[in-house]
């Protein structure tokens, strides 16, 4: 990351996210076993204790790096303008929508909508017909292989029910 002799500082804020999550989860876990029998506690206290210890060492190391000026508390390695430019933020939003909608719309329709929307966003609205065609082919192919041929337990909806009735009636 050398640019004109300038060395970028380590973005320690981003690196602290996992240890902070780990400490918070371990402490929460301890609260759920505090009054439990020893059989429910022993392994968790051992593993959690080691995790807290390792996180403490990491925090001390981070503090020393901050003091020596090697790093900053920035989150640039985690979130930056690139996430908007590449469409990553919208892809995450589309993924959440996929998980929510699939229980109502079923696998095929939701997959078609998700693939179309996310490819449309990532391709910056270029080649819309190709995007729709490839999304339809993938969603229909997925239905044909997994649901129709192998009867896999995918979420079912309007499309799957209609196709089942159509195929059942010849």
């Amino acid at each position, binding site marked *: 990351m050398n640019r004109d002799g300038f060395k970028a500082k380590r973005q320690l804020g981003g690196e602290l996210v996992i240890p902070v999550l*780990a400490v918070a989860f371990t402490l929460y876990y301890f609260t759920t076993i505090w009054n439990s029998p020893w059989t429910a506690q022993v392994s968790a206290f051992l593993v959690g204790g080691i*995790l807290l210890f390792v996180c403490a060492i990491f925090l001390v190391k981070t503090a020393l790096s901050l003091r020596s000026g090697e790093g900053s508390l920035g989150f640039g390695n*985690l979130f930056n303008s690139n996430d908007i430019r590449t469409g990553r933020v919208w892809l995450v939003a589309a993924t959440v929508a996929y*998980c929510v909608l699939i229980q109502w719309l079923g696998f095929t329709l939701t997959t078609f909508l998700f693939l179309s929307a996310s490819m449309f966003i990532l391709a910056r609205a270029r080649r819309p017909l190709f995007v729709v065609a490839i999304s339809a082919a993938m969603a229909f192919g997925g239905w044909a292989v997994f649901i129709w041929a192998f009867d*896999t337990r995918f979420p079912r909806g309007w499309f799957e029910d209609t196709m089942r009735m159509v195929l059942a009636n010849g």
Partner: protein
Amino acid sequence: MGETAALLGDILVLTLGYWWVIIPTIFLGLIVGAIPGFSAANTIIILLPLTLAMELYTGIVFMVALYVSARMGAGIPAILVNIPGTAGAAATPLDGYPMAKAGKGQQALAMSFVASSLGGLLTTVIALAMMPILARVGFYMHSVEMIVVMLFGISLIASIAAQDMLKGLIAGFLGLMIGSIGTDVVFATPRGTFGILELYDGVPLIPALVGLFAVSEAFMIIEKKVIVNEDAEPKNPNWHDTFEGVRMALSRWWHIIWTSIIGLVIGVIPGAGASIASFVAYQQSRTYSKTPEKYGTGHPEGLIAPESANNGVTSGTLVPLLVLGIPGGATAAIMLIVMQFHGVSFGPSLFERQPEIFYGMFMVMAVSYLLMVLTILPLSRYMSHVTTVPTIYLAPMIISFTLVGAFVPREYMFDMYLALGFGVLGYIARRTGYHVAAILIGVILGPLLERYFLLALKKADGDIMTLFSSTLGNVLWVALVLTLVLPGLMNRRRKRQRAQKT
């Protein structure tokens, strides 16, 4: 001896006659192995009505061929898109994916196929020849010994993320804590579940695998136009690369032999599984390598070790099934159910009453490996095209088809949200230098470690010194300490030697 050879010859001829079952099953297995959530076990369950309706030997041929091909199939997406098809292939991308990114996807696939087939074939022959001895390994592995084996797995966490051991330990122990979520085995006390009923049985492995590897990788790859590096030499797939991959694998024949034997021995231990075997083999390979610094950068031996080992596990899991009637894994358990339905009773007497079943399962495995390498090698040149598909199309496909795979095993919508949660965790880990494989190993080992730890303590009335009470356990402890200390010592020695030379 002559009778056995004649019997084996007859069984070989019989098995070769089933090529029409084996070849289509190989392709089915490669597909289901490559898609997270569609393991061989799930597929046999889905096709159970078909399997039960088959004549016994046809059913065995189908199940065993599916089992071995699914194991090999799991390595394909691990190499090409950094997404292992099953947890057993979680160590494969460590060196396979950097090779694919460098434009050597075809070579990596060919190497993986040869290492898997040779490793599987060799361990099948060893298992056949040494069945009575191998079967005793399971008898000697009690809770204390299993704890040390688990700790072997945990010690790998630090070495996998060798660039920053602290981060490796944090990721691994966070995984262990996540793996401890669920009710305790004795009093069913819910622990760390956030009150979510779906977590009472523990954290399911498939959503963890899908989220940590597939979803997070999909979020990452969109930064690039295609998976293969822009500075990689552009070239069309060709036979030369396939043969080069085969040559690279064959020239490391000794490596294939000893790492697949690690897989075989670990596979014999019920419950240990391919994920532990592949990481143990990877770490041992790196420990004794002359160039350990190359591991993780696309080093051929770093790809061969886990692939040979996880295919060695495949033959290992059949040993306790056939000799003791104890399945070594989920697929072996389903095979047991199907074969019991056909009236097969397992145990030492199986060898005397139905030797054709006893030997037949291994023979099917050997024939499947042979046919598999012949049928799949020519396809590696086409498979490697995946690395040149634009990521704007690839990433959404990965997300949709793997997320729905997380739903399949339990049919809970919650599991898709869980996979998404793991995806976000995996994305943060990847962006900030924590290894997702370390988190996954923790999630896998968490419940196993707790189970054996409790068993050992209960047997010894809570005396912690029981961990050092068995001879085999103590030998394993020494081996574990050596495994932790040796890499550091060897590194120092190498540095000293280099300093002396300069």
